[in-house]
């Protein structure tokens, strides 16, 4: 048994590598982009607001799976082709940017307008106000929602199997089919649980760090 598990580990680790790549690259891009989307959505530029609203509506109103399929299998029909990994990553970034954008927008909008006014009379520019006053307060407000979204992202990474990327779940499924064994699937579950556990702890620590004020 132990021997069997050890034998499976290399394949799973290479699956985990893809899972973690999708996970971390999605976060790396979609969090900053989400902030831009939130700022754009709250701006007074009507056309920009409309475009962003439409984008968010589409991204949240259709399954992520469809978005991945659309980019990898659909776009080549009109001559736009991506490799498996970039195709999946683009879909994830577009999708999660929309969700983060909405979370950040809510966070920014909940900050009292007196904060902007106080900054303004002290001579802050809009950019300084955003970076020094609004953003730090927004982070605290959105942390719980962001934590949720990040946990969801861990599990969503399994969707990249559809383009044939060998991520964690796929590596487990292959082994399970081949050996007619449940063990690989249980191991996959354990990997996901370990990941989400680490992330939950991490977010608890970040939330503690922001608990110094109310």
């Amino acid at each position, binding site marked *: 048994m132990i021997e069997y598990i050890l034998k499976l580990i290399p394949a799973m680790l290479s699956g985990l590598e893809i899972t973690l790549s999708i996970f971390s690259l999605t976060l790396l891009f979609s969090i900053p982009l989400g902030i831009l989307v939130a700022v754009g959505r709250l701006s007074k530029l009507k056309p920009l607001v409309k475009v962003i609203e439409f984008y968010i509506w589409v991204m949240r109103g259709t399954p992520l799976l469809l978005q991945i399929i659309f980019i990898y299998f659909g776009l080549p029909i009109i001559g736009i082709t991506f490799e498996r990994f970039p195709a999946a990553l683009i879909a994830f970034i577009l999708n999660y940017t929309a969700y983060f954008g909405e979370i950040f927008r809510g966070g920014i909008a909940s900050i*009292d307008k*007196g*904060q902007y*006014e*106080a900054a*303004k*009379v*002290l*001579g*802050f520019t809009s950019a*300084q106000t955003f970076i*020094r*006053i609004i953003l*730090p*307060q927004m982070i*605290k407000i959105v942390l719980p929602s962001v934590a949720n979204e990040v946990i969801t992202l861990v599990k969503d990474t399994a969707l990249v199997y559809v383009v044939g990327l060998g991520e964690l779940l796929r590596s487990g499924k292959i082994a399970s089919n081949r050996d007619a064994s449940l063990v690989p699937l249980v191991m996959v579950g354990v990997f996901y649980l370990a990941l989400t556990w680490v992330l939950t702890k991490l977010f608890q620590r970040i939330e503690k760090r922001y608990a*110094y*004020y*109310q």
Partner: protein
Amino acid sequence: MLLKVEGLCKSFKGKQVLKNVGFALHCGEILAIIGRSGSGKTTILRCINNLVKCDRGTIIVDGTVLCKDQQEEKSVYAKPAEMLQIRKKLGMVFQSFNLFPHMSVLENIIEAPVHVFGIARPEAEEKANALLAMLDLQDKTSAYPFELSGGQKQRVAIARACALNPLVMCLDEPTSALDPELREGIAVTIEKLAEQGMGILLITHDMAFAKRVAHRVIFMEAGQIIEEGSKEEFFDHVENEKIKKFVIG
């Protein structure tokens, strides 16, 4: 003259909130603007601090034009660089204080001097500590706003507004969050600032407080100044029936 306001007009959605408001504020003077709720008092302060743009009128802060009347057209405003210099000359204490909750008391005070005006941190801290000592807040330097009482928050807001050595200090309803004991404290603080030569523009509907600290009083009604005079003239010899009723309560 520190501050001159002339012909100030402002409408919100077609409703005229300020009608031809004009007054002057001098060095070391405490000017109280009183009047009913909705009479336009806060809007005057917001125009002076450029939080709203007036429709017409001229505002001059210590010789620098903030906005200039253009007769039939909207007033023209100073360019951003000049605006920053004007902001430095104005201090504003909001009714709700608007302290930055994620910053300590000290950080609240030095934030603008250091990050907007490029003053060296030690120098800014020294000034902040002096202000905190003057306002009896030495032991709150590293506290966060949520840990302070209403009166303490207000004093921090005053310290923050004082950090850039403004010439004019605007206070919107400074006594509304305070019990009577603390009112005396804030009266003393305001007087101290005026003694240092600051001009104080004070909005209040607390008659007793206006009587206690003001040198001069302006009475507003429906966006217009309907009475102006020294404190003595205003409280002891007022003729206007409406004002009498308001003053007596």
